[in-house]
């Protein structure tokens, strides 16, 4: 994409560009003059060098989350980690019970994994979050049954950026001898994770949300007390049998470097992202009928999810062609459904349809924010000028009392 025409990137929760420092390091693990060996080759130096790089990266990932390197299993990404954790733990504990609990606002990689387990004869409870996106601990406790074996709750939600109280949920799981899995794809490098103090058994990570490459991730599997899972991919017995397949050294080194940088820079980066986010939110306050989706306090620094009332989402996106962001509305995604996450918060169809997710990251600038503000004002003004609903609202008509001609 030529820089002159490229839109402003405001979609860091979808993916991040690889940090140049990470790319630089990865390139040393591909070619003949680099470390290209198979880390499983035990009989020569090429293999040993690769294995050393893998173990260094494992330690770097573990360091960010205060875990032991032996607790890290490489996967192809958070999707695979979620599958391995949930299916692996559900199947391993099948004789104890066949009931799982999760939340309606989870990523599809968790929800569809649960659906698959339902087809296999497991039962799953999908909890509703509160209107601010957070889980009510009492409602969670009430859902626990004697045959509940696995609970999966994400740390940070990918659409609305809210942070769940993982420690409290984990303590309830411990007390009930339930395996607790956490999808941390959106929290690693953004929120403090300390697995010494957080009672989590399994935790999923992805490199490409943290300025690492796509196609590599990890699953944390607790050793004390030991958590057992059934492998989902069988083969050469790599990763202590939990995940077979030749390890992609360059990808793993990239993830390690990305997590190392995240540990160093997270605190300063969060401060900067919060400043950008707050600047955008403040700059929108002169627009009437703007709604923030999800809790403002229990939320990562770089996320803003907003809905503009009386403006339809797809036309809003059409006006914002210079901004690369995500929409909860219909036709930007393949499905015709409005965001299921916003629906689960109890937002109306209209507000769910007109939602925008703006996520900032390492390379976002104040100028990006200011340009986005200009575009958002122009788009909302243009569309409200055109909107019969806005006109009715201005006339003081309560739209919920209007009888609409169904079509």
């Amino acid at each position, binding site marked *: 994409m030529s820089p002159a025409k490229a839109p402003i990137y405001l979609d860091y929760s979808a993916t991040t560009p690889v940090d140049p420092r990470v790319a630089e390091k990865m390139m040393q693990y591909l070619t003949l003059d680099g470390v290209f060996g198979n880390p499983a080759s035990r009989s020569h130096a090429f293999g040993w060098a690769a294995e050393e790089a893998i173990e260094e990266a494992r330690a770097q990932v573990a360091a960010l989350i205060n875990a032991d390197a032996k607790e890290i299993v490489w996967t192809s990404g958070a999707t695979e980690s979620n599958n391995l954790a949930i299916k692996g733990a559900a199947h391993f504990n099948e004789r104890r019970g066949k009931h799982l609990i999760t939340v309606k606002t989870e990523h599809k990689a968790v929800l569809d994994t649960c659906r698959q387990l339902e087809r296999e004869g497991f039962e799953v409870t999908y909890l509703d979050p509160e209107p601010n996106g957070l889980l009510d601990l009492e409602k969670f406790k009430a859902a626990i049954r004697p045959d509940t074996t696995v609970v999966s709750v994400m740390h940070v939600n990918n659409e609305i950026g809210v942070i769940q109280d993982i420690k409290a949920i984990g303590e309830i799981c411990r007390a009930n001898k339930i395996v607790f899995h956490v999808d941390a794809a959106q929290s690693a490098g953004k929120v403090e994770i300390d697995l010494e103090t957080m009672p989590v058994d399994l935790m999923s990570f992805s490199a490409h949300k943290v300025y690492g490459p796509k196609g590599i991730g990890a699953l944390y599997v607790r050793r004390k007390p030991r958590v057992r899972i059934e492998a989902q991919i069988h083969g050469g017995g790599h990763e202590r049998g939990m995940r077979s397949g030749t390890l992609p050294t360059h990808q793993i080194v990239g993830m390690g470097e990305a997590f190392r940088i995240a540990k160093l820079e997270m605190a300063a980066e969060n401060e900067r992202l919060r400043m950008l986010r707050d600047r955008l939110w403040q700059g929108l306050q002169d627009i009437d009928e703007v709604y923030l989706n999800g809790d403002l306090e229990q939320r990562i620094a770089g996320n803003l999810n907003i809905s503009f009332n009386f403006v339809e989402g*797809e036309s809003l996106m*059409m006006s914002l062609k210079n901004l690369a962001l995500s929409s909860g509305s219909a036709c930007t995604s393949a499905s015709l459904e409005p965001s299921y996450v916003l629906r689960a918060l109890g937002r109306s169809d209209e507000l769910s349809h007109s939602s925008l997710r703006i996520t900032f990251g390492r390379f976002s600038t104040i100028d990006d924010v200011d340009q986005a503000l200009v575009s958002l004002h122009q788009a909302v003004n243009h569309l409200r000028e055109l909107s019969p609903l806005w006109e009715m609202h201005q006339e003081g008509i309560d739209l919920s009392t209007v009888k609409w001609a169904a079509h």
Partner: protein
Amino acid sequence: MAYSEKVIDHYENPRNVGSFNKADLQIGTGMVGAPACGDVMKLQIKVNAEGVIEDAKFKTYGCGSAIASSSLLTEWVKGKTLEQAKQIKNTDIAAELELPPVKIHCSVLAEDAIRAAIEDYQSKQQG
């Protein structure tokens, strides 16, 4: 979603945006659609003593294709008699704007809107 140039033109430069006084006897108002479905069109016509539509205005909440369909319709009905305006088919709108199949409902809504506006005008003349 790729839009045709005509849709983009109507979306960026919508024709005849605005409102007439609903209570005026010369005015017919059609409001169709529902917010929960993602589109609401309001189409108004101003009819003279000869039964000719001399002006039209619209406001639309909806996707680009819905906005373009209603904008185009306001251009087409001007100067037409009520009988002629009733002949406008959704397929003509869809063809002119090169709407893809998933957007045909926008042109259907526009056809519904002009019919509703004409009905409203005619019922006012009787009342």
